[in-house]
């Protein structure tokens, strides 16, 4: 249908031009490489920071109330704000302050905004995992004399993470695309390069190049997530019989 319609030649010229594909590819790919690096750095920081947030939120007793309150406030506020707003606020706002000793790199603040935002969501994923571990495990860990933090670290969290790996992988896919949002700061990542090419040539093939590159990463991760979830489900079934 699409291929035989009258508009197809125009569509092909605008979106699927082999010439423009080759022309734009090197710049878009170079930009995409920056996306991948930003993604990797952000993901490692998110996984670590979110886990700390989730662990603090899971501590019990009045002694930890102030810490818990800080974390809950953080998560509520950050999750309630559009991620794009955070990126603009930090990426343009902080360098504009011209504080000495504070980085002015837009890449730095773009990644920082992603880490701040995604950590709030990911902390909730971890927390769901922590709560999915049976109470008897916590009791058992405390009974051998472990402190709350030790019980979380050595007994609860390892089991919790196993339970939420599929959800964490979903977060990977999401973040892998959202790193492109830092393009609003003028960072020359993949989408920005595609945009620049389009502005120069009025041809949209460069966006398709960027789309293909993003898909090359996100589709395999999505397949892997499904495969892992299914394997995990079968294992649990085998264990419960």
């Amino acid at each position: 249908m699409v291929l035989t319609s009258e508009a197809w030649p125009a569509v092909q010229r605008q979106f699927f031009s082999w010439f423009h594909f080759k022309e734009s590819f090197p710049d878009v790919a170079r930009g995409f490489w920056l996306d991948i690096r930003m993604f990797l750095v952000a993901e490692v920081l998110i996984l670590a920071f979110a886990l700390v947030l989730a662990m603090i939120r899971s501590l019990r007793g009045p002694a930890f109330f102030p810490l818990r309150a800080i974390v809950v406030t953080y998560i509520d506020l950050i999750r309630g704000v559009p991620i794009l707003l955070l990126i603009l606020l930090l990426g343009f706002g902080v360098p504009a302050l011209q504080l000495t000793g504070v980085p002015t790199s837009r890449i730095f603040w773009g990644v920082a905004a992603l880490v701040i935002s995604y950590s709030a969501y990911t902390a909730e994923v971890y927390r769901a995992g922590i709560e999915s571990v049976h109470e008897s495990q916590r009791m058992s860990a405390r009974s051998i004399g472990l402190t709350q933090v030790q019980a979380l670290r050595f007994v609860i969290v390892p089991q919790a993470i196993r339970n939420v790996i599929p959800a964490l992988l979903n977060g990977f896919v999401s973040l892998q695309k959202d790193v492109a949002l830092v393009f609003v700061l003028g960072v020359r990542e993949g989408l920005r390069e595609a945009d620049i090419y389009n502005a120069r040539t009025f041809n949209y093939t460069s966006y398709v190049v960027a789309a293909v590159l993003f898909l090359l990463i996100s589709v395999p991760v999505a397949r892997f997530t499904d495969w892992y979830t299914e394997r995990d489900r079968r294992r649990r079934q085998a264990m419960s019989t």
Partner: protein
Amino acid sequence: MTSPKLEIESVSKAFEEKVVLEDVDLQVNLHDVVCLIGSSGSGKSTLLKCINLLVPIDGGRIALDGEAITDPRVNPNQVRQRMGIVFQAFNLFPHMKVLDNVTLGPRKVHGTGQGEAEDTARRLLDQFGLLDKADEYPDRLSGGQQQRVAIVRALAYEPELMLLDEVTSALDPELIAEVLNVIRDLKTSGMTMLIATHEMGFARDVADQVCFLDAGRILEQAPPDKLFKDPQEPRTRQFLQRIVEAGRL
């Protein structure tokens, strides 16, 4: 006169509105084995968890070697290291090998070196016929083996007192004996124990004192010969009658 190892003085506990323990008094002397019997929901498990400070008490006092452990200034982690507790559902850590289950407490709480902790763990596992399971994960073990590992895990940090919470209730009948034999060995070694159990024959064999709990109160306490043969309270007689009818005594 030496003071008792464990003293429980008018302890009470309620969850929401439901009274689980009411004015419980109990003493356990050094090297003594005290069995708690009574129907499910009579408060046996809760009492053990209160002693291990896993469940905070509402009123009363619990003392270990004469020192109040329910005092809010006492560090519960330090108290817990002095007693081992074993649960009905084993509660081993499923993501750790048997050996790591046993060494976790000594390594993280007592700061024992890995080598020393593993030596102790292997010696204990050997003593309980589990040495060949040291590198297995808990889900590869039978219920009886898992429960013996749980006992070894509690023994690994050399507790002064063991609390056993219906440790055979989740086991298939043919696996119960292996666990009960371990507990008999512990008694022989002089371990002070407080045992909640539904195994009346075992309680009669092993206990120095038997307490019958009913609706959160210790209704009757006596040496096993007396309590099983000549119970004083009507509720105790009724409970034991039902046990006999069920063929469990």
